[in-house]
């Protein structure tokens, strides 16, 4: 099969929570092995859009979508698709670090174990921690509780946990919003590193962050009462230096949001 340059795509995607519409008619392409940032004022549906890519919104009662989400050209919402199968190919890192109340080792081993991994678990855990740039800090205490780590370490542990199931895409929902600036920079470096092998979609409310790390930027905004719409999509440099839409310009220059 010829791989298209877009690993994820949405086609006219709208999402509703009950009767409330959260995003409206979003058509977006996510490039392979690149970092795509989603920015926009709070409540414009950034998380909602992100959570369509691994069908996490299925867990919200009374949520529904219209339109399509394609992963490698396949409809993610086709009736024969099992969401759990998608979720270990498309990993997710959350806004607040959410390590399990288990040891560092068990956190990383959790995904492989439940997905029936047969192989050298020690090796896999070490490799994942190395790739998440955490190994050096925890190699002497992998059996210690994950909850004893600092916030930045916990977030890197969550990244290692996601990497351990060998996903192709990593979704990140404001992964640095609860971290200090140093931990934030560590995660940003890590993202650049990971984008060699993975396709990354990051939601952020921090525009400098989007400008620093991403290759492409999507700007969403609430329009009327119909939820977030895609206002502009483009090269990150173009969006931040030469936005085409005046609402994008207003947002990135801090005039609203």
């Amino acid at each position, binding site marked *: 099969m010829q791989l298209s340059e877009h690993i994820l795509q949405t086609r006219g995607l709208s999402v509703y929570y009950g009767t409330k519409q959260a995003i409206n008619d979003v058509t977006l392409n996510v490039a392979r092995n690149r970092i795509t940032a989603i920015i926009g004022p709070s409540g414009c549906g950034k998380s909602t859009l992100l959570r369509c890519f*691994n069908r996490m919104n299925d*867990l919200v009662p009374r949520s529904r979508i219209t339109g399509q989400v394609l992963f490698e050209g396949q409809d993610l919402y086709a009736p024969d698709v099992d969401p759990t199968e998608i*979720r270990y190919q498309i990993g997710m890192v959350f806004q*607040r670090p959410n*390590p399990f*109340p288990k040891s560092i080792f068990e956190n990383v081993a*959790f*995904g492989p174990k439940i997905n029936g991994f047969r192989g050298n678990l020690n090796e896999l855990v070490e490799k994942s921690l190395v790739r998440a740039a955490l190994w050096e800090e925890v190699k002497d205490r992998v059996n210690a509780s994950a*909850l004893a780590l600092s916030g930045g370490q916990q977030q890197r542990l969550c990244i290692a946990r996601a990497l351990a199931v060998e996903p192709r895409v990593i979704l990140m929902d404001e992964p640095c919003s609860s971290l200090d600036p140093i931990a934030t920079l560590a995660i940003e470096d890590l993202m650049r590193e990971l984008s060699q092998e993975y396709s990354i979609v990051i939601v952020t409310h921090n525009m400098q962050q989007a400008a620093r790390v991403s290759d492409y930027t999507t700007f969403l905004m609430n329009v009327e009462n119909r939820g977030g719409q895609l206002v502009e999509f483009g090269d990150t440099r173009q969006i931040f230096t030469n936005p085409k839409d005046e609402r994008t310009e207003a947002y990135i220059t801090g005039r609203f949001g």
Partner: protein
Amino acid sequence: MAIIAHPDFKRHMARRQWQGRAFHALCLMAVGVALAMLVLLLGYLIQQGVSRVSWDFINGFPSRNPDEAGIKAALLGSIYVVLIAAVVAFTLGVGAAVYLEEYASRNWRTRLVQINIANLAGVPSIVYGILGLEIFVRSLGLGRSVLAGGLTMGLLVLPIIIIAAQEAVRAVPRSVREGAYALGATRWQAIWHLVLPQALPGILTGVILAVSRALGETAPLIVMGALTFVPFAPDGPFSRFTVLPIQIFNWISRPQAGFHQAAAAGIIVLLILLLAMNAGAILLRNKFQRRPEA
């Protein structure tokens, strides 16, 4: 400042402080009265019964002679009934709680079930006795056996465990579940590997409450026909049986003072059993509550 200098303020302040002290004293008094009653009760029991507590008493069977009467049959009966009840109620209760919290959709039917579980917790225990008599003793043909008694008691404490388990399951943060789902866990895997282990201490708290309740209940077992004079230890699930509270009640209602002493001794044994079972559950809970070494 002007306000502080105001004479009204000072007068109010004095009154407020006085009120605070009065309330403090009232609370202390309430605690004191409760404690005093407890000490009085324990003191009376010990004075009456402690001399009768001995291995012969624990290992003996009831007798017409008050000084020879022992409590073995009732003690074993109580232990069997409570263990059967705890196992049954734990299994069903955790299952029901997980279903209600994790699987059932939030609609009027679920709410109806929920309200009824809360109501069941308040149904007089004698009603459970009638239920047990009809279902276990008669329909299922278990007879007036220790198994039927345990199952009846299990039904009685089921709502307590369901409610405690539901609260414990609900208290597990959503972020933990989401973390598991995001790795491709099925609902069952998230529940089994993450939700239940984290909820277990809370569930065990419910078990402690349930065990205490089951140990003290008498009415349902009397209704379903537990005996009062049992000169043998239960030798299997279908054996006839009695329990401590019934035995104690039986002794208290005799005229001889010797039986009253035996009753006091029986209450001491009952209290010790209660404490031991609770301590066991608490130890278990602390074991699960401990986080991996930091």
